[in-house]
């Protein structure tokens, strides 16, 4: 059989969103791959120039619908740095809690979609069941399950509700118990799952750094880069946590990426627990930002999928002069041909599912 191209997308069960993975196969082996993105391009960087600083938070929520708070938080941080204001301490702690809750929800969504990618529909239902707990918490905190619009320039929108701490602890305990006892049985303790993920889609640390892969995908290659540790923002330096790295060998495969993200779920629970203990019980959670600002602000945060970067320039008006967004998945996409080449056709889902693609932020 001659070599031929297979279009995986734009309408395909593998692409969780609207993009196209062109794969050239020789029989079952992939010889070449070409990601084709831009179906969802909305021109965020341009739209944000015509809206006021505070109103842009609504837009940044919609960069990635799975992980809204982390994105709007990154934007708020950049604007705050530009304006030179500082969030009150309680506001910072609340932000940390909301970020980690969002990270758990996002990683659970990734795990939920990774299951059916490999043919394990039970994983989808189980992960969505637990994600519901965290969506409830986020709803309790911000009033919305999706596109929360919670972080604001200068703090967060509202204080935590009264019973939040108790509910949060209860949910996390419940979730950790499931994480210890139930999930391993269908995921990494299952031999078939290991067969499908181990040794598939390997990426060396050098390649990963050269192609700009960040976040859990880079940590799966054995590189200890976690911006929460290296370049702490908010109150992360007061929290005792361990960035999750793949320890065995320097080459990251699908299984390594799975393990790193799976352990990050546990680590995020740990962070939330510590934050609930250490945070001041009362106090202001928000300062009023100035309406107009001039200067440059630059914020780099550890998003659920990698390093999210916002670069905001103000020219003294009440809206940004220029905004630059660096989305981690966009950079990871460049490395997909390296990841895919030489693997089998069935491994496309195993690899692209494990790098956790979010089309909203990729196409901006």
């Amino acid at each position: 059989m001659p070599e031929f191209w297979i279009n995986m997308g734009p309408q395909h069960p593998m692409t969780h969103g609207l993009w196209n993975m062109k794969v050239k196969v020789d029989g079952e082996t992939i010889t070449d791959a070409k990601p084709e993105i831009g179906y969802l391009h909305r021109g965020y960087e341009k739209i944000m120039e015509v809206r006021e600083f505070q109103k842009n938070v609504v837009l940044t929520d919609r960069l990635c619908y799975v992980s809204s708070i982390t994105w709007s938080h990154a934007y708020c941080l950049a604007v705050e740095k530009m304006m030179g204001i500082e969030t009150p301490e309680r506001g910072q702690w609340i932000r940390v809690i909301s970020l980690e809750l969002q990270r758990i929800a996002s990683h659970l969504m990734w795990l939920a979609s990774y299951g059916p990618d490999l043919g394990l529909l039970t994983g989808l239902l189980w992960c969505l069941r637990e994600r519901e707990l965290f969506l409830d918490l986020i709803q309790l905190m911000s009033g919305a399950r999706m596109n929360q619009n919670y972080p604001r320039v200068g703090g967060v929108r509202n204080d935590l509700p009264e019973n939040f701490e108790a509910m949060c602890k209860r949910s996390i305990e419940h979730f950790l118990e499931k994480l210890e006892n139930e999930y391993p049985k269908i995921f990494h303790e299952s031999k078939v799952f290991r067969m499908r993920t181990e040794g598939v889609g390997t990426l060396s640390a050098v390649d990963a750094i050269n192609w700009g892969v960040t976040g859990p995908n880079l940590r799966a290659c054995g590189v200890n880069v976690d911006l929460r540790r290296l370049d702490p923002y908010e109150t992360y330096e007061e929290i005792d946590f361990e960035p999750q790295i793949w320890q065995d060998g320097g080459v990251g495969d699908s299984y390594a990426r799975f393990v790193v993200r799976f352990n990050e779920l546990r680590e995020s629970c740990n962070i939330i627990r510590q934050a609930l203990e250490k945070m001041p019980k009362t106090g202001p959670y928000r300062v009023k930002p100035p309406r107009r600002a001039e200067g440059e602000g630059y914020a780099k945060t550890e998003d659920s999928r990698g390093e999210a970067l916002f670069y905001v320039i103000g020219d003294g008006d009440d809206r940004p002069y220029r905004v630059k967004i660096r989305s981690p998945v966009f950079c990871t996409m460049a490395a997909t041909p390296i990841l895919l080449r030489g693997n089998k056709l069935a491994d496309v889902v195993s690899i692209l599912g494990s790098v956790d693609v979010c089309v909203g932020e990729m196409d901006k």
Partner: protein
Amino acid sequence: MSAPLIPNLFAVCKVLVAAIIGIVQSIIYALSGPIPPLRGLGDWLGLDAVITVVTYLIVVTIVVLWVTVLNLFTVMWVERKLYSRLQDRYGIMISIWSLPFWPFNRVHRPTHKGLGYLQNLADGVKLIQKENITPRNADSAMFHISPVLIASSTLMVFAVLPWSSGFYVANLDLGILFILAAFSLAPLGILIAGYAANNKYTLVGGFRAAAMLLSYSIPMVLAVIALVVFTGTLDPVKIVQQQDRPLVAFGTTLPLPAWYVFGPQFLGFLIFSVAMIAEMERVPFDIPEAEAELVEGWTTEYSGMRFGIVFAFKWLRMLAACALISILYLGGWSGPVFTTLSVGGIPVPIVPEEIWFLLRIYFLAAFFVVLSWSVPRVRIDQILNIGWKRLIPYSLLAILVAAGFRVLG
């Protein structure tokens, strides 16, 4: 010791058909006074050949209805309910009691607390209403012929598959071989379906399906050969009769029935079960229609009831596979309780053989369902590796073990 509910389906039906034809004949003879040519028609109806042919048609209809209407719907319902429970949800709940015309149902909020048994029927009705789309560049004749080929080859299995010692269409001496031959017809249909739709997904899916089914039917046949060394027959009824006795091993009688799974055939049982999972394309081996990478594999382009046929035939194959496993290795329809009551001189079994057989079938089906919904699917090269490098050597080993036991007694 055994007692089926129907002593012999063919004989029973023949008596009934003869009786009905007798009534029709007497009516025709009564009418032939005014219309003399009808007399020849009445004589022709009374021929033994005519009665036999009509009886065969009726028996085939009964078995096909029994298989498709009753057991197919039940096994689909069992699967949907069981995997829903596995995923912490209720599954299908809309039943006939959810329809809005019952007085206890409000129109806007009908109750959804039924069992949902007829959901699959409703799905079938929906599929029949849908349009049958043929892709423009498809090889139309081949595209339309392959669902028929697949479905009919699967139904052929049930022509010789006995449901008890009396409930079957035909009892061949080579029944097991016939079933295996009918099972092996599907790859050609699948490959042609994959080619004819003129789509890359169906092409790759058809390739995978044919390669997988072809390579797994070899260990399947080899495991049956290992069994035949022991049984000396390919007649399913005789194979079950051989297992319907207590197990004697090490000179003592063990409190176990003499099923072939207990003993040297255990390896063959494992191989045959794994090969059967592949033959019915369930999840660890459902790579032909891996919906994640090939949209729906070789069934991508089928729509409407044609998709329904190729979708339902998987469950029919599952039924046949479970029945075959239980006949060959798990004692078929032999069970512990066969007490018969005498109703007017006719012995009526309290727990007939069909019940024991169905219990085994559904237990095996439930096992396969739980297995297939708790593991991911295996990659195609791994599947072929398992087939050629593990199962075939092991099945050869099973033949050697069986022959050795046979020689040593």
